[in-house]
């Protein structure tokens, strides 16, 4: 390594350490006014909860999920599982079976309701997330997960669940009022469509993916 390269490397080392120090300071434990960490709850829920116990229990449940090798896919599912299941004591959840890791091509809709255009396509590491939107701001989100060890949970207390057929596959249509979800497994890939559309339209979109 010549002097020039050494100087570059030394400066990067120093920069790295200074950045690390600065970030450590930003995360230092100090007396700060604690803001109440309020989970998303529906206005109808009137039970009183102790904030501290709620945080501890929510994180402890995450630890149990990790210990049993279960990984939840979305934060919405985690909130449903943590707050619906644990705090209401009545919510059940739907398990989808694990899939083996697969290499699958990305599927795209051959049918979409009029006015919808693609706005994004993202590789999210465990699969692909594609979104479409119309002029009214309504969004159709298509999630295709190819990673293994996936389990997603839905709060069945506030969500109506109905089985259906998507193409040749068994699926579920979930209706929680505003947002509707269609989920199924196709060739080892976990498929999920989220939108405000009705069941028939969502099944038609799902059945037409190529």
């Amino acid at each position: 390594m010549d002097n020039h390269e050494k100087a570059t490397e030394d400066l990067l080392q120093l920069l790295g350490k200074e950045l690390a120090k600065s970030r450590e300071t930003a995360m230092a434990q100090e007396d700060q006014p604690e803001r109440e960490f309020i989970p998303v709850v529906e206005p109808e829920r009137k039970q009183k909860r102790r904030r501290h116990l709620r945080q501890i229990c929510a994180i402890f449940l995450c630890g149990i999920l990790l210990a049993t090798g279960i990984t939840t896919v979305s934060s919405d599912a985690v909130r449903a599982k943590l707050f619906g299941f644990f705090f209401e004591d009545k919510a059940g959840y739907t398990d989808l079976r694990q899939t083996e890791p697969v290499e699958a091509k990305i599927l795209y809709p051959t049918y979409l309701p009029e006015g919808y255009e693609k706005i994004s396509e993202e590789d999210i590491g465990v699969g692909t997330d594609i979104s479409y939107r119309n002029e009214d701001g309504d969004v159709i989100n298509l999630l295709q997960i190819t990673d293994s060890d996936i389990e997603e949970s839905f709060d069945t207390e506030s969500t109506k669940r109905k089985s259906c057929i998507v193409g040749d596959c068994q699926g579920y249509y979930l209706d929680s009022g505003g947002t509707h979800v269609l989920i199924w497994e196709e060739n080892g890939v976990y498929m999920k469509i989220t939108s405000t559309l009705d069941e028939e339209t969502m099944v038609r979109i799902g059945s037409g993916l190529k």
Partner: protein
Amino acid sequence: MAPSEFKTTGSLITALFERYKTNMQRVAHGILKNADEADDAVQDAMIKIIKNIHMVDDIDSRRCANFVYTIVKNTALDVFRKKQKEMGQMVTNDISDFVNIIGEEINFDVFEPDYGFSEGMQEYLSQLNEMDKDIICLRYGNDFSDEEIGRLLGMKPDAVRKRLSRARKHLAEIIEERGNANG
């Protein structure tokens, strides 16, 4: 406290959350400027932390603090970018013009005595994007491996190495320019 001092993974996660939750909220709030969105981002960040809990050595260490910081900062930035897209705004890579990212207060004087590079480092840092800063900080400041950095930032290890190589080359160019300018 090291992970071995906790009886269960759950208690480790709980202790980590208790230790960092206020700071996580502060980092997320600095970016999102909305308390509810910041809370959501912290929750999402905790999911990612749990998935990578094996990388935690000691919850009070600089390494752990940087690990948590990187995850919550990038989670909040992802939410910010998504909001921009949904509002039809241009998604900019130079995100620092729009958000307040705490934890980037560097003492540039340390670059002066041995290298005379205080101004040069300010120039270099202003040209780095957030991902490159994260990679430099995690690699050089915290000794994370390329694989670990890749996991934290959602990249392949090769991509981490490439970005680091480009960052190194860019710094070398600034050093040379300044060296030429100074004669």
